[in-house]
């Protein structure tokens, strides 16, 4: 094989690996949303289920967070987009030196860590509240208010960049012509500049909303006693989780894919009209630097999705989740029974060796933990075991501990406690 051929294969492999890294986590997470296992995983695949979507919709905290995220998002759009627009317009009218100063200050919020923005906003408005209004928890020290302000600080910079990019293609001749014909400045702004910037306003608004919707670092400081979707999510992910989070991710991924397809479709349509205009000898609206031949098979992709959905439905006809769950629970019970026998034998051997029982305190502690997860379907086997508790308490506890660790070890609240403890004490 030629070296060029080897190179091609290597490049192809690299790109394949790269996109596997990019999409693998999302794909795996999406699958966990359909597994009936209490803990989000795909490796012990239990049953295909849609129950996590129900759990998600019925989750009051998440839904409340979603509502306030929408509210904050709209507020940010209303604040950040006009600011970004004003800044970009002002920028075009400044002299070079002043422009670079304003530009540096204006994009600095993008470079400053979000945490710092959140803190400074919190500290500032809390102080304003105390000094100007003379009260604590007054108007300015409000979670929604501070979050909208704090997020807009850097989102306005995004909006500004979008507008600046569009303004670069603006023909100042249009403005001059309108002024020469006797239009006022306000008229020029309303009739010429705004229509020209309309697509940029739309994309800046979408960008601002999405950036606000998924912001966490700033929000977590400024939101105080309220909560948005991201702060609810963060606490959920940290303290015990179930696959309803994955279900949320599936919904978001689906929406993203959908909007990508729509965007692609609109873009294609726009290009078609532009090329039609070009064919008629009219000037093009936007100067595409490198026109791509559009060959993304949007239609084929949509068809594929529809077909796979239909196939899924067809296979799901005779499928009963409850039946499957009972079967899995039974399998688990048998598995744990075997495990228990094994532990019993081990413990017996150990006890004979040391001649001592397990300490009572440890036993009590671990029995408590056992009950925490007793309603998990995967732990059904254990419920049966609890009858035997009196005789084999220590052994059952050992087993419960094992099982507990298996499913919640990494999210163990104890671990988080440690994390908090390790901070230096407040003096």
């Amino acid at each position, binding site marked *: 094989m030629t070296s060029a051929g080897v190179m091609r294969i290597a490049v192809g492999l690299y790109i394949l690996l790269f996109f596997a890294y*990019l999409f693998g986590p999302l794909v795996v997470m999406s699958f966990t949303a359909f597994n009936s296992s209490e803990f989000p995983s795909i490796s012990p695949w239990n049953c295909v289920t849609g129950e996590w979507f129900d759990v998600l919709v019925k989750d009051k905290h998440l839904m409340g967070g979603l509502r306030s995220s929408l509210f904050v998002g709209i507020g940010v759009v209303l604040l950040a987009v006009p600011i970004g627009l004003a800044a970009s*317009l002002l920028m075009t009218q400044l002299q070079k030196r002043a422009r670079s100063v304003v530009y540096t200050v204006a994009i600095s919020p993008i470079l400053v860590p979000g945490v710092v923005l959140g803190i400074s906003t919190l500290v500032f408005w809390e102080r304003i509240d105390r000094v100007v209004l003379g009260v604590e928890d007054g108007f300015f020290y409000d979670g929604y208010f501070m979050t909208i302000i704090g997020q807009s600080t850097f989102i306005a910079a995004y909006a500004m960049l979008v507008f600046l990019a569009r303004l670069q293609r603006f023909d100042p001749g249009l403005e001059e012509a309108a002024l020469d014909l006797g239009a006022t400045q306000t008229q020029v702004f309303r009739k010429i500049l705004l229509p020209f910037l309309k697509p940029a306003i739309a994309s800046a608004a979408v960008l601002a909303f999405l950036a606000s919707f998924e912001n966490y670092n700033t929000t977590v400081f400024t939101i105080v006693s309220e909560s948005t979707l991201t702060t609810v999510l963060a606490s959920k992910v940290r303290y015990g989780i179930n696959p309803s989070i994955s279900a949320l991710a599936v919904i978001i991924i689906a929406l993203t894919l959908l909007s990508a397809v729509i965007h692609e479709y609109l873009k294609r349509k726009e290009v078609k009209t532009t090329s039609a205009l070009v064919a008629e000898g009219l000037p093009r609206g936007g100067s595409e630097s490198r026109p791509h031949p559009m060959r993304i098979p949007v239609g084929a992709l949509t068809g594929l999705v529809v077909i796979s959905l239909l196939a899924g439905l067809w296979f799901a006809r005779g499928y009963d989740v409850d039946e499957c769950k009972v079967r899995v629970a039974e399998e688990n019970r048998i598995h744990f029974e075997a495990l228990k026998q094994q532990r019993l034998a081990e413990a017996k051997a150990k006890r004979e060796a040391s001649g001592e029982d397990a300490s009572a305190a440890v036993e009590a502690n671990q029995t408590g933990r056992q009950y925490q997860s007793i309603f998990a379907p995967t732990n059904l086997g254990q419920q049966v075991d609890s009858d035997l508790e009196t005789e084999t308490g220590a052994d059952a506890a050992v087993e419960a501990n094992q099982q507990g660790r298996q499913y919640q070890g990494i999210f163990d609240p104890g671990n988080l406690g440690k994390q*908090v403890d390790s901070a230096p004490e407040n003096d």
Partner: protein
Amino acid sequence: MLGWLRWFMARNGIALSVYMLGAVALWVIVMIVLPQLFMLDFSFRHNWQQIDPSKMGGPEDVYTFVNYHFLAYGSPNNPDPFNVVDVTVFFRTIIAAVFVTIFDLALCYPIAYYLAQVARGGKARLLVLSLIIPFWVNELLRAFAFRILFGEEGTINAILVGLGLLSEPIDFVREDVALYAGLGYAYILLMIFPIYNVVESLDKNQIEAARDMGASWLRIHRRVVIPFAKPGITSGCTMVFMLSAGALAAPQILGGPSSLWFTQIIYQWFNTGSNWPRGSAYAIVLMLTCVLLVLVLMKIFKVKIGEIGR
């Protein structure tokens, strides 16, 4: 200045001028500059609000270095020569962020080059579009996905154990593998796009010319592409470094129980610690260090700040 103002007013009319100047003043002064100054001021104060609110504004409410001193040396009865926990975490965060940046650069440069110069037409568009999609998914959900993958009972362990490559599952979360993989993942896009934008504007003929004159592909990259892409590379590295040093979600979700990220310590001062002045001081130290490092980097690579974010 006044002359400019008069010219500006005449040019835009009163309503527009007031809107533009007012909005920008609100943004730059009330939202950007003043909060930072207040935070700076706050970081030099005692925590009277929590300890004894009556002393606020009184003779004892004076400026102090106590919060910065605490970051360096810990509480007065700390037996160690310096504040071991916080200082270690601080340097670990900075160094880890540097490594995440290098990792992302190494990972993304080939892809950015491929997208900008090699791939063409529909394929390139499809690849670029599919690059963007994962980044509309929430940062927390992305971290959550890595938790599913890397957990002790996670997919990767299941696969490795299932294949017989491992006898015991590895706790990737405890080993911080999950954190670094997740952080690297989180900011891929911010590394690719600046490089992509610059490399795309590189004239293909330059590469052709170098190749015709017998340069190896390594040499082409070293002498032609990389020097040309420098602003993009610097801008990408700046973004990734800043964001990963300032990341909070990924360390909270993917960090092992014993390993802290500096932002987590700041977060604790504001929440469980209830010591805002100290949290502010820590935040300022973090910000200044990051900005300083980035400025040094820019100086070394001779890139101006105005070129960032384009």
